[in-house]
């Protein structure tokens, strides 16, 4: 064999070996209307996914689909990022521990992957959720982020790190008690750190004086208190449930006293009325479900309606929407429904879509990986049968990390939910 042919043969075999050595999992979703949430929707677009990450998004004629790819032809359908729930307390066995201050517990320890809540959320397009403790404790526990992609806790967890600590200003008991409890817990933690520092210094001095004697033991800071120190140091954020406008003022006071605190507001009840203060302080916001807030005018005895999402948007705020807790599959309350209600009262549809994708992803610090259909992000995608927010639109398929996790045409629950399951 001539030298040039030999080197060509070697090059060829090297290429062949390189091709078979690392088999890639390639998925292409073709010809859908793609709502990237990062710009204008692409009318007839294709998304390419390699090993669970998005590697290309664009008009179909601009995206080359490699050989060997699984191709889903999605003509006439709409592709959206997998929906993100920033805060919920469903999917765990019981949301509230029987202690006013329990920062050392974590929802990771009571996650129930078998819960029908997860199954029902995914049917409606949700892929990632921040699972938090409930609203009854002044200081609850830690929340974690999960994807609805496995039957084990380890498989569902997005990260071992907690998302945030949960606080509630509308905890059981009076607000006076709640605020006092929180402040005392903060001060006790700082006191514990101070005592620990003093004990350490004293131990060091004793050691210097008497190098040969056994070193005095300095007990570590109580592990129960450590998360609060992380909170006060700003290394662990908190989600604060607020029910009334005054709760927002109280949070601002707390932030003034402990300036490193990082807080996201979870707005229930009438707390959204403090939107001016929230906007001024540039706080991140999650809106509890139930977007049509009514108040009775005591003089006219007529009801006024406050569309929460529009009110916040007019104040210049971004926010994450939430599904109703433990949403029943049959009943309104799902995330897309909340977004549709927001559109009903004037929120632009593009913003409503952000409020269930990018903004919640940002709220839980995962917008680098989730919330839009962009190159480099996790391939968490939901394929809709039609336009988003329409009453006849259903989720047909869900992929998480590029893996197919839901197909409506193979959904066994439809036998249970329908007398005559729809023919697809």
């Amino acid at each position, binding site marked *: 064999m001539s030298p040039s042919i030999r080197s060509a043969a070697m090059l060829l075999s090297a290429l062949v070996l390189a091709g078979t050595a690392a088999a890639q999992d390639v998925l292409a979703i073709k010809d859908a209307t793609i709502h990237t949430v990062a710009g204008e929707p692409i009318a007839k677009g294709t998304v390419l996914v390699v090993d669970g990450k998005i590697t290309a998004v664009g008009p179909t004629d601009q995206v080359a689909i490699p050989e060997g790819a699984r191709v889903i032809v999605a003509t006439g359908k709409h592709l959206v990022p997998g929906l993100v729930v920033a805060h919920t307390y*469903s999917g765990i066995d019981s949301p509230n521990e029987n202690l006013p201050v329990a920062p050392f517990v974590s929802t990771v320890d009571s996650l129930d992957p078998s819960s*029908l809540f997860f199954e029902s959320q995914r049917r409606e397009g949700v892929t990632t959720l921040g699972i938090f403790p409930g609203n009854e404790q002044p200081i609850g526990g830690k929340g974690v982020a999960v994807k609805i992609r496995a039957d084990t806790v380890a498989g569902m967890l997005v990260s071992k790190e907690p998302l945030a600590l949960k606080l509630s200003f509308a905890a059981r008991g009076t607000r006076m008690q709640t605020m006092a409890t929180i402040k005392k817990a903060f001060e006790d933690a700082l006191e514990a750190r101070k005592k620990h520092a003093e004990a350490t210094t004293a131990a060091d001095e004793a050691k210097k004086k008497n190098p040969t004697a056994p070193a005095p033991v300095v007990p570590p800071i109580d592990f129960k208190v450590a998360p609060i120190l992380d909170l006060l140091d700003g290394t662990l954020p908190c989600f604060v449930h607020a029910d009334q406008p005054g709760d927002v003022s109280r949070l601002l006071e707390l932030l003034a006293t402990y300036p490193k605190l990082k807080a996201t507001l979870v707005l229930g009840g009438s707390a959204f009325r403090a939107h001016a203060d929230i906007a001024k302080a540039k706080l991140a916001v999650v809106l509890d479900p139930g977007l049509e807030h009514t108040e009775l005018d005591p003089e006219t005895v007529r009801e006024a309606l406050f569309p929460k999402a529009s009110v916040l948007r007019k104040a210049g705020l971004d926010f994450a929407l939430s599904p109703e807790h433990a949403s029943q599959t049959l009943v309104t309350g799902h995330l897309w429904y909340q977004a549709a209600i927001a559109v009903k009262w004037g929120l632009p549809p593009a913003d409503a879509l952000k409020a269930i994708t990018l903004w919640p992803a940002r709220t839980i610090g995962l917008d680098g990986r989730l919330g839009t259909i962009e190159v480099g992000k996790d391939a968490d995608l939901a394929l809709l049968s039609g336009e988003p927010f329409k009453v006849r639109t259903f989720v047909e398929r869900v992929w998480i990390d590029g893996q197919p996790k839901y197909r409506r045409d193979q959904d066994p629950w439809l036998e249970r939910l329908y007398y005559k399951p729809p023919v697809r």
Partner: protein
Amino acid sequence: MRLTAVLYAVLAGGAVWADTTAILAGRVHTGTGEVLERATIWVEGGRIVRIDQARPGPGVRVIDHADATVIPGFVAATSQLGGDDSANEESSEITPDFRVSASIGTSPVYLDRAIARGITTAFVRPGLANVIAGQGAVIRPGAPPESLVLADGLELVIPIGPWPAMGNTSPSWGGIQTTRARRPTTRMGTVWLVRKSFFDARTYQLTKRTDGLSKEAPGSYTARELDVLVEVLEGKRIARFVARADKDVRTALRIAAEFGIPRVRIEGLAEGYRGPDELATVSEGLICEVVASDPINANQPLSGLPLPVAVFDHWLCGTHDPLCGCCDLLLSSAGAPGSAELALEGHVRPEYGPRADNVAVLARRTNKLALTTVNHTNHVPEPLEAGSYAIRHGADEQAVLAMLTRIPADMLGLAAEVGTIAPGRRADLVVVSGDPFEVTSRILAVYADGALRHNSAETTR
């Protein structure tokens, strides 16, 4: 919403115009299945005179909804728009001559909510706590107080289900029955009391005497009470059975057949898809409830139950009350001793339970079907929500609109008055921003008797 001319309607006073008004609509759903584009609805004296595509000339009062869709005001086939007072009488289980109209307050909140949801006519019934609950009324939410009740003393409401027994405890053997310690305490007790009432009515029909007849519920009958029951037996009054579960619907039909009750209506039908076939021939029609959203108790965890039925937490009563026995579910919190066994014991077989396409299935079997919602937070039905839900899961849009307007109007004997946008009817109109049953559409305005009763721009902050 643009009002391009001076409006003579007074919200509180509810003046009815004598002059002609032309309401311009981008689209009109008449309620008969017809959809008209760019139509004008001519209104005079609170009534619809005609609908055409003529443009109004100068000098005619014009209301411009040319960007919106207009549908007929909703006719709620059932509701509990009482508000002020309880509609569950506690002194006796048998109260045939009690009229719910006495407990309908003029509390504006519930009536305002009804109007804001487009309900311009509503049947109000007593609650379900009594065995023979009493008589309903038709009201006009949005009307001035003196015109609130349109018709009274209607039908006889007979709940067949767990509710009359709920809250009753057994009286001691042979002991006196009181408000709480009395029968019935079971479904069989409930049904027995219903049958006893009609049996006693038959006896009275023959003897014209009340002595010797005891309600056992507690108390004794008055002639008036028995007259009402006799009216039902003679077909002069409709018996409205409220039955949600399949077994209760069949019981209701059995009782009706046993006593030859000529005029029967059934409300509830959460398991209506299960039949039976004779549902299609129920003389006065069916009222199907859709379980609407329940903001209260929304954080009730679905814990412990590994079975499909867990998805339908309290579908029967919608109360999410863990002590409610009505759904035959035993919800136990995870970790309670024996919870798995308890959970398995009480569950409903997969062939039963609610179905998303219940309305669509029933609609294929009968035209005499009205639609309503179960909403236990404020007793105000949510017609658009019920419609959206039914359509999402397979029902036809025009059929659903009729189920909320023309058909209930017909059932209540008010077809000439309400339920359609047609000449001669009351000008009850709901103006919607887009497709009525899209969640993204909202009600912009509601007119009743031609007067503006709800203006969304005014009440939205």
